[in-house]
C-alpha cells in the first residue's frame, strides 16, 4: 500500500513538489480573489510562469554547486 501511495504521489507531484504546492497556492488565491469580487484572471498567467521560474533557478543553482539536475 505504501509503495502504491508513493507511486501515485510521484506520478502526480513529479520531480519538484514546489510546482504542485505553488499551483495549489495560486488557485487558492484566485478563488479567494473571485470570492471577494476581485478580478482574478491575471493571477494564473503571471503566477504560473513565476512558479516554474523559481523551480528552474533552483535546479541551476544546484547544478552550479555540483548537484545534479532532476
Amino acid at each position, binding site marked *: 500500500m505504501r509503495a502504491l501511495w508513493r507511486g501515485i504521489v510521484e506520478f502526480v507531484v513529479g520531480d519538484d513538489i514546489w*510546482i504542485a504546492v505553488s499551483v495549489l497556492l495560486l488557485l487558492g488565491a484566485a478563488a479567494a480573489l473571485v470570492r471577494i469580487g476581485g478580478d482574478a*484572471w491575471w493571477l494564473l498567467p503571471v503566477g504560473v510562469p513565476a512558479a516554474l521560474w523559481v523551480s*528552474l533557478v533552483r535546479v541551476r543553482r544546484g547544478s552550479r554547486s555540483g548537484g*545534479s*539536475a532532476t
Partner: protein
Amino acid sequence: MTGNLLVFLGAALASAVEMVEALTIVLALGVTRGWRAPLQGAGAALVVLAVIVAALGPALQAVPIDLLRVVVGSLLLVFGLQWLRKAILRASGLKARHDEDEAFADEVAAARAAGRSPGRDGYAFVISFKSTLLEGLEVAFIVITLGVNQGATAIAAAGAAVALVVVVTVGALVRHPLSRVPENTLKFVVGVMLTSFGTFWAGEGVGIDWPGADASLAGLILLTVAWSLAFTRLLARPPGVVTA
C-alpha cells in the same frame, strides 16, 4: 472546432511520447529474449488500461463540472509544468537529453544479464507489462482529462489511437528504438498545451471569467510558448556542460 483540434493534437502528441518510451523497452526485450513474453506483457497491460479507462471515463462524467475543472485542471497544470520543466532544462543544457538509443542499449544489457528459467519468460513479461502499464496510465490520464473537460472524449481517444497506430507500425517496421523522434520538442509542445489547458480549466473551476471566454485559450497558449522560450534562452549554457 479549434478547441477540439487542440485536444486531438494534445492527446496524440502526449500519447506518442509515452508510447515511444514503452516501445523502446518492449523492443529491447523482444530482440534479446524473443517476442512472445514481451508482447503478452504489453497486451495484458493494454487490457488492464482498457478496464481502467472504461471505469474512470463514465465516473468522471458524473462529477459536477466546476469541481472536475478545478481538480483535473490543477492536475493537468502540474503535469504540464513538469513536462515543460524537463523540456526547458534539457533544451538549455542543464539536463542531459533523453536518448532512446541509450535507453535501448541499457535495457538490452539488463535483459541479457537477467537469468532465464525454463518455460515462460517471467522477466520479459513483467518488465513489458510494467512499462506499458505505467506509460499507458499517463496517456490514459491525459486523454481522459482532456476529453472530459472539453466534452470531446472521443476526439481525445482518436488522437491517442492515431498515435498508437503510428508508433506501433513504425516500431514494427524498423524494429529499432525511434531515436529520430524529436522527443524533447514533443515534450515541450505537450507541456505548453497541458499547462495552457490546465490554467484555463482550473481558472474556470475556481470562478475566473477569462476575457474573451474560450478564445483566451489561444492567448494562453501563445503566452506559455513565449515565456517557455524566454526561460530556455535565459537558462542556456554553453553546450557540453550537462548533468545527467
